């Protein structure tokens, strides 16, 4: 190969950010007819979650996958996707995120080349007891991180932030009663063993971005650049679809193996929750406006994109 690029990722190899990484690497290698060779480094072997952003900017890796929530304050515009706007599928959220980025080209990403973007699946409540109203959540200790812990706080639950590695033990010991995250974790982290009751709430998604060092990108030949550019939208959609299918599979697996139950949060309760969560979106607006972003415009566009893709 003429060029060899390193691609760093932080979660373990079997998780979706790494699966999309391997798919992307293979696609690039095929479409450039072997001109480009991508070396992938899953599981924080090259860069960890928290130094991915600065690591790619400094050239520690050519390409890196970042979770926007790990750098609060750095992405005033794109953090709109961390807000509780209620995406119900990863596909809709991922496609919308990429479209918003491609159209607006926010300057918060000026120091890097963005290759693609995608989101996690919507976060839902996985709990030891059934949740049929917001009252059931009162004072309940639930593990969450970033935007999800704010959601819990606003709804009256007690968010507990702890490293994912400690969650299973904490569940076992009753330190926490549930987890607010996406359903793929039921299988991937075996949470279905402890958490029988699943409530579909679609509170938030976690946005990710695949970024590339600018010098590394600029050094590529025009035809290779073209391949990477064209892959952006396609990869966003592929990842969303993969993830949605994976969530369905995870739920099936958990139903068969542990007999979990999945219920919707009743519509009236969902409306109440939405009302309570507007504070969060307002908070985002204030912060975004302070950094010179037309927050109302951006939000309106996100909602329009959601209406277009999410059904």
């Amino acid at each position, binding site marked *: 190969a003429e060029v060899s690029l390193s691609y760093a990722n932080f979660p373990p190899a079997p998780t979706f950010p790494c699966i999309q990484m391997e798919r992307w690497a293979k696609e690039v290698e095929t479409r450039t007819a072997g001109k480009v060779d991508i070396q992938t480094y*899953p599981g924080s072997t090259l860069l960890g979650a928290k130094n991915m952003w600065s*690591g790619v900017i*400094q*050239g*520690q890796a050519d390409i890196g996958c970042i979770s926007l929530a790990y750098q609060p304050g750095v992405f005033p515009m794109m953090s709109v996707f961390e807000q509780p706007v209620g995406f119900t599928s990863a596909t809709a959220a991922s496609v919308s995120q990429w479209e918003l980025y491609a159209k607006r080209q926010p300057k918060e990403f000026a120091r890097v080349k963005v290759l693609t973007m995608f989101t996690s699946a919507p976060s839902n409540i996985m709990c030891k007891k059934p949740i049929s109203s917001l009252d059931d959540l009162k004072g309940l200790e639930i593990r969450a991180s970033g935007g999800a812990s704010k959601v819990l706080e606003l709804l009256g639950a007690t968010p507990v932030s702890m*490293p994912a590695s400690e969650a299973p033990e904490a569940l*076992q*010991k009753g330190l926490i009663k549930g987890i607010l995250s996406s359903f793929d974790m039921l299988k991937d982290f075996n949470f279905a063993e402890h958490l029988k009751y699943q409530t579909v709430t679609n509170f938030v998604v976690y946005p990710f971005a695949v970024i590339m060092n600018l010098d590394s990108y600029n050094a590529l030949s025009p035809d290779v650049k073209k391949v990477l550019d064209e892959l952006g939208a396609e990869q966003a959609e592929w990842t969303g679809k993969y993830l949605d299918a994976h969530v369905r599979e995870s739920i099936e697996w958990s139903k068969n193996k542990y007999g979990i139950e999945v219920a919707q949060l009743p519509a009236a309760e969902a409306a109440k929750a939405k009302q309570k969560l507007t504070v969060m979106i307002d908070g985002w607006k204030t912060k975004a406006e302070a950094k010179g972003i037309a927050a109302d415009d951006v939000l309106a566009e996100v909602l329009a994109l959601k209406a277009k893709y999410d059904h």
Partner: protein
Amino acid sequence: MSLVTVGILGILALLAILFLLRMPVGFAMGIVGFIGFAHVINTKAAMGMLGTELWQVFSSYGLTVIPLFIFMGQICFQCGVNKRLYKAAYTWTGQVQGGLAMSTILACAGFSAISGSNTATAATMSTVALPEMKKYNYNDTLSTGAVSVGATLGVVIPPSVVLIIIGLQTGQSIAKLFWASIIPGMLLMLLFLLTVHVICRRHPDWAPAGPRTTWGEKIRSLPGSIEMLVLFGLVMGGLFAGLFTPSEAGAAGSAIALFISLVSRQLTWKRFVLAISDTLRTACMIFMIVAGAVLFGRFLAVTRLPFEMAGWVASLDIPNFVVILVICLIYIIGGAIMDALALLLITIPIFFPVAQAMGYDPMWFAVLVTIVTTMGAVTPPVGVTAFIVSSMAPGTPIQRIFKGISYFMVAYLICIGLLMLFPQLVLFLPAHIH
């Protein structure tokens, strides 16, 4: 020069720097990792790595368990709790040859049941046990060896950081992994006790048998162990009852130890300051080794040496059990030169599917790998647990500690062999409890 060759040269350079230049282990791993990374990727990238990795390691919540548990042990140590405890132990088992070394191993096992890491176990138990064995004229080859291997029970007997990490990486139930490791943990402990017995038969002068004590003396010595039992009981109880996380257990343990020693008027300002400054130095030394291992691990990862090695093993056209033996051998060699956790983080995603594809039970493989890599924590040249014990035994050269440990290698190998021959030792409890 291929990248894998660079990786192997990096390992050789590390060994040369460690032995010939006598550079501190954490520093040496960091420097070789930095230079190697700069060579494979580029200098700018390596500099960027320096700027973030030390911060990432030092500020990780998971590692806060280390200073907190050390602090608990240091308070006990400064206030003489351990002296009284050992006096009790010696009164009860002293007339047996090697009695104190045996009770050290038993105490390590007990502490392992509340500590998830062998570093915390090593730090606490060596402050408690080493001065006492020295006082009773134990040979330091035996005493430091016993503490070192005893401390490795920390990650075999549950709770265990290593098992938690393997469980998360491979999607296994952590509860089941904990159950699965109980019998192997006890087995290893019994083999260590047996080893002490054999050593004492061969070197009667290493562990002098004490004078016979009367039952009256035995009973009267008991209150000396109460403080420690109360402390361990509260910490262990709280941890298993789900009142707190491991780090919180360390903090609660420190607070309770401070409280007990204040009430019993053992705690002076001077002892408090000594406890704190010793805790800081020990914790710092451990953190620096972890940080060095992370930098070195980053370098190895970019040479793809661990990946290539795993791929090579998977491609071999040989019987399954030979593959398992080869994997174990790789872990033993890898464990000898690098930190167990870093090694596992890099290799588990690759070896695990190999073992599963060959039809081995994932639980069995996890426990086996835990014991094999744990052994690496006490093998030279990079034996983190042995280093910690060494920092607590200023008069004992590290090579004498490694010599002491070498007597216990047979116990490890027997244990690993038994687990290979009788997988039921691992699988029985989880199958019958769940």
